[in-house]
């Protein structure tokens, strides 16, 4: 069943730039569920939801969640083994 109700990690760049000084969308992300390793920009991003949810393109498990409340931003990275950010 093909589904197209998602964008990709590129669309998370704005939200993540509010939190981090480096661009994480070009970082390499490893999925803690299946080990799939790819640029974060290639992850599947669900934005029509109460928060932003990035999922692994390999196994669809949650890589990252961002919820903005009026006072805080909640960032859940527990689905990522690592984010590898290029130096320089």
């Amino acid at each position, binding site marked *: 069943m093909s589904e197209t109700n998602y964008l990709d990690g590129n669309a998370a760049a704005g939200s993540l730039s509010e939190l981090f000084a480096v661009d994480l969308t070009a970082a390499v992300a490893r999925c803690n569920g299946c080990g799939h390793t790819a640029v974060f920009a290639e992850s599947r991003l669900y934005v029509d939801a*109460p*928060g932003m949810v990035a999922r692994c393109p390999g196994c669809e498990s949650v890589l990252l969640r961002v*919820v903005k409340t009026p006072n805080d931003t909640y960032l859940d990275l527990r689905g990522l083994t690592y984010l590898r950010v290029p130096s320089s």
Partner: protein
Amino acid sequence: MGIVSPGFTGRQRGGTELPPGQYLTRDFPVLSAGPTPHVLTEHWEFTVTSETGEKYRWDWAALMALPAEEITKDIHCVTRWSKLQTTWKGVSLDTLLADVETGADYAMAHSYGGYTTNVPVDDLLDGQSWIVYEFDGEPLDPEHGGPARLLVPHLYFWKSAKWVRGLVLSDTEDLGFWETAGYHEYGDPWKEQRYAGD
């Protein structure tokens, strides 16, 4: 902070019948935090697990054999849309939990696809919640949670777990998918309990 955008009104909001901060919608927005599970009714199963670990199971035929109710309720999504007088058909949780031996105060709803949400048991009983499988007289679409979803219309709609597959009862309160990421543990729209601490 920020500016007002000249001439921007956004979607229609307000109205006396709506909880604070909600706007009215006529269509039925589809919110999704992941891919839509496509669960065939012949494979569908609903399980209640009590705090002692006892399991109670219903397959699709067993669910269909239970007395069904027609339900008409307003629903309120935390993303600020409300939809009035939505009509559903399903089985009351009073019916499903009638033979479950439990003194638990809390329930965690689990869905196909991995979604979870926590609801107090008191909010599931006394005609307040259902496992629904029809919307507007038609079988519930997968994108709206079919074949069956939880319906707890007096709480924000994220509590009405789509593709529900079971309830796990517990003496202690755990938090579900959105509740662990900043959303309110209870979610009463009339008290505008959107976020943790509201």
